[in-house]
């Protein structure tokens, strides 16, 4: 099975840095410990299952350990580990007879792409006496609420959001980690954001965080 190597180093189109000799790299354990909590957080979000996430972290580290000599830039170890984790998750899912979900574009909710949370809040006016309508809406959400909404986003659209917004990768880096063209990544990012917006609104309504114009106000 091919092990992915640091995406930015191989796909940027620029001069490819030579691999460091193994003796120039810090010990693998040092790299692993430095990124462990972030890797675990990524795997939890990737798998949406703590038990699967634990398996995936171990598998990722096993693969990374074997491929460590191919790491070109230790400063980019996080992206390298995330790429390995993404590939390992695909392989684990396949081995269990589950394909990682991909959604054909024509199967998407055609209205989902047009939903605007900004506009919906303005129209529904859930806080009629507020001067900060939109900010008041965002203030309703606790960490658990955001996590629940995030979990409801289709994985293939959730991952670009997590990589770029939560983990701070550039779109180009996220595209390399997920092994998709940049245009695909940008399209998925947009759709993920739209699902996030709709998810926040639906969650607020279904959990009684807001009162809409369809409901009676006291």
């Amino acid at each position, binding site marked *: 099975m091919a092990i992915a190597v640091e995406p930015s180093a191989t796909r940027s189109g620029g001069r490819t840095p030579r691999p460091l000799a193994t003796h120039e790299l810090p010990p*693998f*354990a040092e790299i*692993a*410990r430095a990124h*462990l*909590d*972030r890797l*675990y*957080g*990524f795997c*939890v979000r990737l798998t949406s299952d*703590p038990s699967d996430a*634990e*398996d*995936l*972290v*171990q*598998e990722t*580290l*096993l693969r990374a*350990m074997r491929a460590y000599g191919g790491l070109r830039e230790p400063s980019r170890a996080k992206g390298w580990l995330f790429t390995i984790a993404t590939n390992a998750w695909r392989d*684990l899912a396949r081995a269990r007879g589950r394909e990682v979900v991909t959604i054909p574009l024509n199967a998407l909710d055609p209205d989902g792409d047009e939903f*605007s*949370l*900004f*506009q919906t809040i303005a129209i529904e006016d859930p806080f009629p006496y507020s001067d900060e309508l*939109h*900010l008041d809406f*965002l203030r309703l*959400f606790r*960490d658990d609420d*955001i*996590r629940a909404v*995030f979990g409801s986003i289709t994985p293939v659209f959730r991952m670009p*959001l*997590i990589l*770029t*917004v*939560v*983990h*701070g990768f*550039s*779109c180009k880096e996220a595209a390399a980690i997920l092994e998709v063209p940049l245009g695909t990544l*940008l399209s998925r*990012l*947009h759709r993920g*954001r739209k699902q*996030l*917006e709709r998810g926040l609104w639906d969650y607020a309504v279904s959990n009684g965080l807001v009162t809409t114009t369809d409901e009676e106000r006291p």
Partner: protein
Amino acid sequence: MIDCREAVRRMWAYLDHELGARPVSEFEAHLETCQRCCGELEFSRHLREVVADKPGALPVPPELRSRIEILLANPNEPTEGPA
């Protein structure tokens, strides 16, 4: 001149500094004439912060950490992988 729909599509990329020079100038030209998109940009900025504020890192459960430490201490004997 881009329309509101295109401006909204570019909004997060603009916030992420992922747009090229020309798309940025088209986007900013649109903002100069569109109060609604200015408001949505501000909202998107806050929404993005709400999401970005969630920690990417999660504490590794102690039992998993123990298994990993064993793995790291015995790099040549990685035996117990996932089922």
